């Protein structure tokens, strides 16, 4: 029994139980979704959305409105601002995104650091899994359920589009619509994930598990399942680390996720010649 104490300890505390549930829900759906984020090269776009929504979060915190509402509005404003700025061909999408996101993060910090605002900037930037509310947990559960169903339903069109967009078009798939649906799902995931990990760290949930499993999964379906498992396990590992080492919970979760990505990226496999010789 003593041996299991380090594992059971956090479960005896209500706060840590909720934090574990939050990161397992977020880690599983974002870990699966992350496969498509990486394949469709949306990591920079996702990072931009998660950072650019900061003013929305701050305004919601100032107004006492639900943070999810602020995050959703912030994502919409950030996406629209990036789209407008990127239309200028002299700027180009990367520079436009960089400037808009920096401007939005600056605006968010400005709002949050004004004298009469509540001292929550740190929480909004780095997340506070230990402070998740009931509504945060419900949002994460809805995202995990609805997002999982969407990924299941869109799996074949997403695969056909990612593999060969032109050929998918000839099969009657609408690649533009499929990618738009994916972007919508990413935006929703970002808006919910910032409740747990904050504007700066939530990208780790979306990208790290996918990078951890990418080189090891033989099919898209398995990569999604493996990403979900890695996301949930690494997220939980972060909460345990935080509990036992007394480190900040959000940062510990992000560190555990990135450690998983680094482990997965290592050259684990034996050389091809050794594989075929033993096969």
């Amino acid at each position, binding site marked *: 029994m003593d041996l299991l104490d380090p594992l059971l300890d956090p479960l005896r505390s209500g706060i840590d139980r909720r934090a574990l549930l939050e990161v397992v829900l977020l880690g599983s759906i974002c870990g699966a979704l992350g496969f498509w984020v990486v*394949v469709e090269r949306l990591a920079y776009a996702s990072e931009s959305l998660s950072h650019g929504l900061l003013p929305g979060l701050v305004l919601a915190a100032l107004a006492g409105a639900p943070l999810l509402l602020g995050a959703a509005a912030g994502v919409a404003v950030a996406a629209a601002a990036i789209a407008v700025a990127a239309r200028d061909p002299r700027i180009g999408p990367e520079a436009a995104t960089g400037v808009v996101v920096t401007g939005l993060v600056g605006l968010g910090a400005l709002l949050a650091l004004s004298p009469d605002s509540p001292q929550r900037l740190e929480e909004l930037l780095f997340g506070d899994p230990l402070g998740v509310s009931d509504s945060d947990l419900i949002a994460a559960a809805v995202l995990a359920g609805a997002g999982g169903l969407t990924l299941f*339903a*869109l*799996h*074949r*069109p997403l*695969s*056909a589009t*990612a*593999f*060969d*967009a*032109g*050929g*998918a*078009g*000839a*099969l*009657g*798939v609408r690649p533009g619509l499929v990618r738009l649906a994916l972007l919508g799902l990413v935006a929703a995931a970002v808006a919910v994930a910032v409740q747990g990990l904050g504007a700066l760290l939530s990208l780790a949930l979306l990208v790290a598990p996918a990078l951890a499993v990418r080189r090891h*999964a*033989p*099919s*898209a379906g398995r*990569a999604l399942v493996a990403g979900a498992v890695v996301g949930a396990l690494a997220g939980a590992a972060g909460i345990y680390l935080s509990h036992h080492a007394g480190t900040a919970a959000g940062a510990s979760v992000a560190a555990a996720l990135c450690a998983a990505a680094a482990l997965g990226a290592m050259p684990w496999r034996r050389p091809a010649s050794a594989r075929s010789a033993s096969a």
Partner: protein
Amino acid sequence: MSAPRVEVDDLAVGYGGAPALTGVSFTAAAGESVCVLGPNGGGKTTLFRALLGELRPLTGTLSVAARPAYLAQTERTRLDFPVNALDVALMGALAGGPWWRPPSRAAREAAEGALERVGLAGRAGVAFGELSGGERRRALLARALVQDSPVLLLDEPLAGVDPASADLLDSVFRSLRDEGRTLLVSTHDVASAARFDAALCLNGRQVAFGAPAEALTRATLEATYGHELIVLRESGAERMITIQHHHEH
């Protein structure tokens, strides 16, 4: 003769700006194969994109009996995407069945059958990126076969393919025509055109359409290919070949 599967009348299409292809009029019936000849930039792929519904006619009309199956000329497939040959063939079932459900058992059987038909039965589980160039083309043809369309558009299907794969692909095309399907095949290979029921010569406009023996005169081919045409004389007989420029576009 039954109603044409593909009917094009005075078609002009383009990409905004001047039309890339004008004055195209031809028909193709069930069980007919049409060879589409022309230089690079002559409008072969543009015609296929119009038949696929990706380009709207600027003038004229076109009608195709069903959504055509398409084998693209340039490979734009992602070789790093984790799919095997069977997965690729199964994608063809997206054209017919509900896209939100996993493929049916019938679709799976069709995909296995298509792989067998293109000689990849033993390679079903191999990652697409690890197949040879010719095998990849055959896997993409299997995807088109699973689509089970009465009309197939094959854009330079034999270009850059190893001889063994080319022979196999050619025999599949013949059997598809024998099944009563309509095939439009673009090619640079003037000599192979004689094996088709009809030849369509394009060079920004329609130069000729008709039975190969009548349509492919030296004058027609010169108007089609211009400087890309080389005439060889071997013991009195003329043989015409074209210079091929491989390009990505």
